[in-house]
């Protein structure tokens, strides 16, 4: 029963969602399942929060490796949550001027943006390592990368200003984006979509091990 019930539920919900897409009267069931999904999705946020507190509290209690960082995590959580919940002065917590907004702008935003900014450095080091003209395909990749990197910024057009309008590096970059790039994206998307269809069918039919199947 422990395995059969989830499999039956999965099959039922999966098939309903597919059928509802083609047979409109099934939309009543689809709407019901979507309502349940909304409730589960909202509670999943709380589950994540509770899990975070539990894991770090446990780390502090047992004095496991790096347990002082557990205190940092819980303190950080409380510092953001308490002002947001209790010190908004009657306004929405996300309104400009509230303490939550202040912390968001001056703490969360710089931290998040800094991590994202690391990509600029890593892209440079990865490009330096990966873009070598080892063979024909690698050379083509290298050439495309060059044209795109310079063509997508004004430098490309500046370098090729001697060429007639419509034939400069920017235009070459646009051509690569519009044609070979889009064709490749489309091909990968079709393959992935079919992969998702096949995987979803396996889950609905109870064949996927990770979802409790055979």
């Amino acid at each position: 029963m422990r395995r059969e019930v989830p499999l039956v539920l999965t099959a039922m919900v999966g098939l309903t969602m597919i059928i509802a897409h083609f047979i409109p009267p099934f939309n009543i069931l689809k709407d019901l399942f979507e309502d349940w999904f909304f409730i589960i999705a909202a509670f999943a946020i709380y589950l994540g929060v509770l899990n975070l507190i539990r894991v770090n509290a446990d780390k502090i209690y047992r004095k496991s490796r790096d347990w002082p960082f557990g205190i940092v995590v819980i303190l950080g959580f409380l510092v953001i949550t308490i002002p947001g919940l209790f010190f908004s002065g009657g306004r929405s917590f996300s309104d400009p001027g509230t303490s939550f907004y202040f912390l968001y702008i001056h703490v969360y935003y710089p931290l998040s943006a800094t991590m994202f900014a690391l990509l600029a450095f890593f892209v440079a080091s990865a490009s330096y390592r990966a873009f070598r003209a080892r063979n024909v395909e690698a050379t083509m990749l290298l050439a495309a990368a060059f044209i795109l990197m310079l063509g997508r910024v004004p430098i490309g057009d500046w370098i090729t200003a001697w060429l007639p309008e419509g034939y400069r590096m920017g235009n070459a970059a646009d051509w690569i984006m519009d044609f070979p790039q889009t064709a490749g994206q489309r091909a990968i998307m079709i393959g992935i979509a079919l992969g998702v269809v096949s995987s979803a069918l396996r889950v609905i039919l109870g064949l996927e091990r990770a979802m409790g199947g055979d």
Partner: protein
Amino acid sequence: MNQENNQEVKSIWEKLLSIDRRIIFLFIAVAVAVPLFFKLSMRIPVTPVAQGTYQAIESLPAGSKVLASFDYDPGSMPELQPMAEAFFRHAFRNDLKVIIMGLWPQGPLQANIALEEVFQDEDIKAKSLQYGIDYVNLGFTAGNEVVIDRMGHSFEESYPKDGQGTPLSEIPLMRGVRNYDNVDLIFNLSAGYPGTQEWVQYAVDVFHVKLAAGNTAVQAPAMYPYVQTGQLSGVLGGMKGGAEYETLLGIPGRAVRYMFSQAVAHAVICMFIIIGNLAFFSIRKRKKTS
């Protein structure tokens, strides 16, 4: 003497090939930071995909309602925030009504930050825009693409109240706005999931609404197939997309200013790639000779 020189030159190439990545990081840091101190304006050529986004908004008559979904977080602010500000300037300048929402928790906050910036403009101040009449912020709802699907039937099912807790029925702007039939355009700023792809799959394909978008530079190429098929009116890609939008509006802002920095960084990366390949070929040639 020749052999010794060859040995020295050889080691330089080998050193370059296995250069400490922190040196590359240093060059990139300088390439990005130093141009920010120079106020150099570059001519930004506009691509057809960016033009499509601009045109989708520009063609709307005054009083049209635009549903603006802010689906990004502070990490993507450098790329998408200039687009958000340019969008608000464009919309308010053309007397459009904006319904703000977010499928990411931070999205509606990002919209507030952009509004705060835009409301400093004298021409926008002169319009005396009012919350609830000219714009409204519905806030965030959990549920990802299910929210998009539900809104096709009824906005109120997903957003019974706005971000400040006011029921939708009490907001003048939302009267008569039941679902996508009652908005003229959806404008989406997206940094990942859920984002533009979900808006295309669940709003455009099912409810046949018009959609224009702005994405991060990494994600924008994946939207080109949708632009080609007409499912997306246009897409702004990354900081360059923001710069193109500002150029089309005739209001050069942060995106245009930062393009100089991006241009120098791209040039530095290209320089490193050239050096890496020179080193690679040099060593390969020597190995073949020896």
